[in-house]
């Protein structure tokens, strides 16, 4: 439910860009602005983001793998997941 009204000043160029993009996507300018807010504004406060980095810094039991090998591992894991899904579907 939308209950908050916000008045924002835009340049004519910004307004034209918004209207053009909204038309291209078949949506209202308001919906486009709401979508942009959801896509851009942090939902985790700064303290939570710093805690996340501290948690990553605290990892101590991982091992280095070169970039090209990382991609291979991701590909193999995806294939494994697909295989498991197929096996479940057959049951």
């Amino acid at each position, binding site marked *: 439910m939308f209950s908050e009204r916000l008045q924002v000043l835009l340049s004519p160029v910004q307004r034209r860009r918004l209207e053009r993009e909204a038309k291209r996507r078949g949506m209202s300018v308001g919906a486009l602005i709401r979508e942009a807010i959801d896509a851009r504004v942090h939902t985790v406060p700064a303290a939570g983001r710093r805690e996340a*980095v501290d948690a*990553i810094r605290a990892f101590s039991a991982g091992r280095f793998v070169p970039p090209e090998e990382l991609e291979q591992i991701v590909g193999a894991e995806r294939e494994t997941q697909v295989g498991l899904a197929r096996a479940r579907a057959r049951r």
Partner: protein
Amino acid sequence: MTFLVDTNVIVYAAVPSRYRAACLEILDAVASGRADGRLSTAILEEIWHLERTGRLGDIDGLAEQSYRLFTPLLAVNDEIVARALQLEVPRIGANDRIHVATALLNGIDTIVSADAGLDDARSLRRVDPLDPAERGRLIRG
């Protein structure tokens, strides 16, 4: 300057390597708002896959912490897939094509990545996390 953060930057921030300090510096800057690094749903999925395989040791929780740091993620939608399919970069795989298209359609022209293979994507500038001058350009203050 907004930039895309590749999977390896997140992983290398969490495991012992020569990349670790540089990658953590980037993540610290993102957390404090001094750098505008973005992650996509596709990159988060890769991190999650890597975590679940166990082949990088114990990095349990890395996907969740990455999400906390980078949400809202850039979405991968129909338009991005269509653009990825049209990219003319023969030596780049499907995953990286999706990343390149995600960046381009979000107006992002830079990716931080240790993967030199991305240099083939001419439309996207790769910044190696170990390059202090380039890294400094991404971080304000």
